[in-house]
């Protein structure tokens, strides 16, 4: 190497070093709250957004009339000034609004609320329309009062309908009018690109640098500023938020440890906890979730059309094993479709299949159940001497050999827990001679197979964010929803259940409705169209050295209460 080369190399090194130091120094000058996102938000079009990351951003901007307090016991008025006033006819509600302003300073009025609700009804916007189709009329009585007239009394109106985000008429009127003239109005509305969403929330979007970050600033017009709602004094006390995109949680965890972000807004795997706990400035939150992870059966065809076999499977599945190993203890077993945390609606007196039994006892129990139901083996799981052995040649009560069956699971990259649980369940079922094999499938293909084609034996799926209102019980198992793309994926038909479900939807009296919901849970636990398996906990990690005030609630700390209350340390 000549002298010239060496000098050049040294210069290069120097440049790299300067670069490294300089960029580290630059980061120190301001104090934004920095949050890691798992993926880029899909869109800022609130009607199109259905993914967690878009919703994370939009939840700072578009606000509902009512929302749950962190304690989850009650709904508190948010954009509304007080609880809805129901008139004597039982179908007319009147809601007073707070004096609020949009982030551009213009006034938030009843017309905006009416516009939003009509928009949903006119465009039949997916995911929202079902909660609004029973609303007959929406009227702006005056600037600060909205009146809703329902077609019939509806139990879910307050909890499910009045929690939709309100958009501004100014922002959407033209878009909606233009879309209506198109051949495909809904698609046009969905494909409308929103650059700077106009909301009433605590933050406004400053810039979205595609593929890299989103920059939000405090909304000076935020209606809640300085107010005390749900017993909490609202800020925001943070000037700016930077949302950075990290494609993999591993890197996000490194960023957290390094101090490049203050919070990672996505549940993390339990595997990280041990290491994160060694960092004094990192705090782990483990929160309850309202979710359901379950094994679903196809009741439309053998072999799982037989409840006995479904119950046998329920006994064979060792939920505790899955929770302890796969979830590393961060989760709890489920016996009802409703999570146990939903204390008001949850029925605690349900059959706990296989609870407390060890492997051998489970196999014996299943042997008994199946024998009684008329199943036979060429080699039974329990031999004549009462010893457990590998079973083979399981025959259905009608004498035919059980065909090999598959358990569909999402792929490991989508959710390793479900993929591995599938493999475990496969092994357990085989112990009783049920020729099961787990088959992970791409998520889209899996849903197509299960929801649209109904061509499957069993599957493992989950619902991430179930509402607190248990109306979904009806949607999952009412025979009305057993059709293409319906949510009754098992094909469960039970007239008794249907009747109770329909009643529960319309019963306004809470206690009476609770009894119906209890009954529904019982029926499902008896017939096992779905076998609830586990309820994972939401594990989140934050740094405590720069910001404090995270509010823990159901589904974790990433909620509007946190963002309204976070404030810089010192």
């Amino acid at each position, binding site marked *: 190497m000549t002298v010239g080369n060496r000098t050049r190399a040294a210069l290069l090194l120097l440049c790299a070093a300067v670069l490294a130091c300089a960029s580290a120094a630059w980061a120190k000058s301001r104090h934004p709250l920095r949050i890691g996102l798992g993926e880029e938000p899909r869109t800022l079009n609130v009607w199109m957004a259905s993914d967690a990351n878009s919703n994370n951003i939009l939840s700072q901007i578009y606000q509902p009339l009512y929302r749950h307090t962190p304690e989850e016991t009650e709904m508190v008025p948010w954009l509304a000034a007080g609880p809805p006033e129901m008139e004597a006819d039982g179908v007319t509600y009147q809601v007073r609004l707070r004096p609020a302003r949009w982030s551009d300073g213009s006034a938030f009025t009843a017309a905006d609320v009416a516009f939003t609700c009509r928009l949903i009804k006119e465009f039949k916007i997916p995911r929202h329309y079902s909660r609004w189709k029973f609303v007959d009329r929406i009227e702006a009585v005056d600037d600060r009062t909205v009146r809703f007239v329902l077609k019939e009394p509806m139990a879910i109106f307050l909890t499910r309908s009045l929690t939709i985000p309100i958009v501004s008429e100014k922002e959407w009127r033209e878009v909606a009018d233009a879309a209506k003239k198109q051949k495909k109005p809904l698609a046009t509305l969905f494909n409308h690109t929103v650059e700077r969403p106009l909301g009433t929330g605590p933050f406004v979007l400053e810039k979205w640098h595609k593929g890299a970050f989103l920059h939000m600033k405090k909304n000076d017009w935020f209606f809640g500023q300085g107010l005390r709602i749900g017993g909490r004094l609202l800020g925001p006390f943070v000037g700016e938020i930077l949302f950075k995109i990290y494609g993999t949680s591993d890197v996000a*965890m490194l960023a957290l440890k390094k101090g490049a972000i203050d919070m990672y807004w996505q549940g993390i795997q339990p*595997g990280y906890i041990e290491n994160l706990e060694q960092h004094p400035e990192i705090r782990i939150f483990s929160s309850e979730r309202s979710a359901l992870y379950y094994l679903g059966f196809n009741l439309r065809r053998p072999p799982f059309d037989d409840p006995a076999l479904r119950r046998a499977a329920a006994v064979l599945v060792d939920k505790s094993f899955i929770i302890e190993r796969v979830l590393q203890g961060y989760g709890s077993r489920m016996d009802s479709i409703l999570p146990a945390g939903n204390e008001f609606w949850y029925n605690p007196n349900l059959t706990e299949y296989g609870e407390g039994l060890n492997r051998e006892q489970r196999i014996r129990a299943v042997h008994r159940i199946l024998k009684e139901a008329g199943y036979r083996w060429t080699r039974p799981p329990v031999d004549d001497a009462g010893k457990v052995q590998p079973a083979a040649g399981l025959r259905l009560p009608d004498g035919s050999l059980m065909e090999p069956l598959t358990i569909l699971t999402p792929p490991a990259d989508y959710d390793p827990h479900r993929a591995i649980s599938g493999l475990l369940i496969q092994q357990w079922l085989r112990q009783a001679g049920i020729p099961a094999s787990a088959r992970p499938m791409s998520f889209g293909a899996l849903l197509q197979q299960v929801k649209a084609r109904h061509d499957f034996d069993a599957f493992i799926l989950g619902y991430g964010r179930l509402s607190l209102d248990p109306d979904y019980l009806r949607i999952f198992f009412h025979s009305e929803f057993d059709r293409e793309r319906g949510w009754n994926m098992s094909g469960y038909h039970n007239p008794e259940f249907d009747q109770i479900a329909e009643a529960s939807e319309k019963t306004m009296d809470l206690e009476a409705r609770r009894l119906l919901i209890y009954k529904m849970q019982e029926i499902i636990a008896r017939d096992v169209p779905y076998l609830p398996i586990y309820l994972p906990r939401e594990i989140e990690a934050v740094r405590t050295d720069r910001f404090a005030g995270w509010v823990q609630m159901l589904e974790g700390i990433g909620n509007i209460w946190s963002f309204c209350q976070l404030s810089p340390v010192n």
Partner: protein
Amino acid sequence: MKTGNEQRDTLAAPAGRRDWLAGGWALFWENPIGKIGLILMACFALMAAASFVPPLLDPMYHPMHGVDPEISHATGPSAAHWLGTDFIGRDILSQLLAGARIAFMVGLSAAFMSIFFGTLIGMISGYAGRFVDTLLMRIADMVMVMPTLLVVLILSSLFGQLRIWTIVLLIALFRWPGVSRVIRAQTLTLKHRPFIEAARVTGASHLRIIFRHIFPNVLPLALLYMTFRVTSAIIIEAALAFLGFGDPGTVSWGMMLQWVWKTGHMFQAPYWLLPPGICISLLTLSFYMLGRAMEEVLDPRLRKEGESE
């Protein structure tokens, strides 16, 4: 140039083959790269063979289903688990050994198939000429510009999780054009050699000429390319599994990395992260080294195309 031709001629003549083999072996062994490659590969072959042992010792050493009843989270190396356990208590060493078996299986079978397609198409294309040649080579061009990993990724994400054999087949289906180009070129030079002309004059059928006369002469070249294809097959399978599109019923090294990645142990459990990565790299290295050493023995002039992969 001269040496190359001479060697090729020796190849064609059966009489010289034994001498050539002995000489080739000496040349091969003299090459440090060939030696290292062979030794490495022998180690991995041993690993693959040893993979049958642990499950026999104790069912908890089954790489897929066996879990240590005492352990329910990832642990480092211990007496019972020399490389530690994964997060549900499976033994990492037995997974690593099983992975060696899978890697050999995937690598060799995918390579074999792609060489099979490539050689067949190359010979037909070169021998038939004209329209068939143009058609096959245009198809080859087209397949060649497809980034194999992305294509297989698309296919496996579209059609659900693929079985390991499907993955192998797909890799083979997209890795033949390079081989067939080289084989075609070689066939073209052979086509007008006297012994082929002679065979044609004596009325041998096309099939007979291709398989009896051309095939033995392109075989060494095909074998050489096989070693390179083995490496690319192993890498593609591993990358696929790493991204979560592998066969979940199989314990491959890529799957192990996927587990360590997706369960959040990536930077927490070096005893789990490092071995599969090192193994993938070293096994592909060993095949590659073998190929390079073989190449120097076979003919230093035939390398250009295969190597960029």
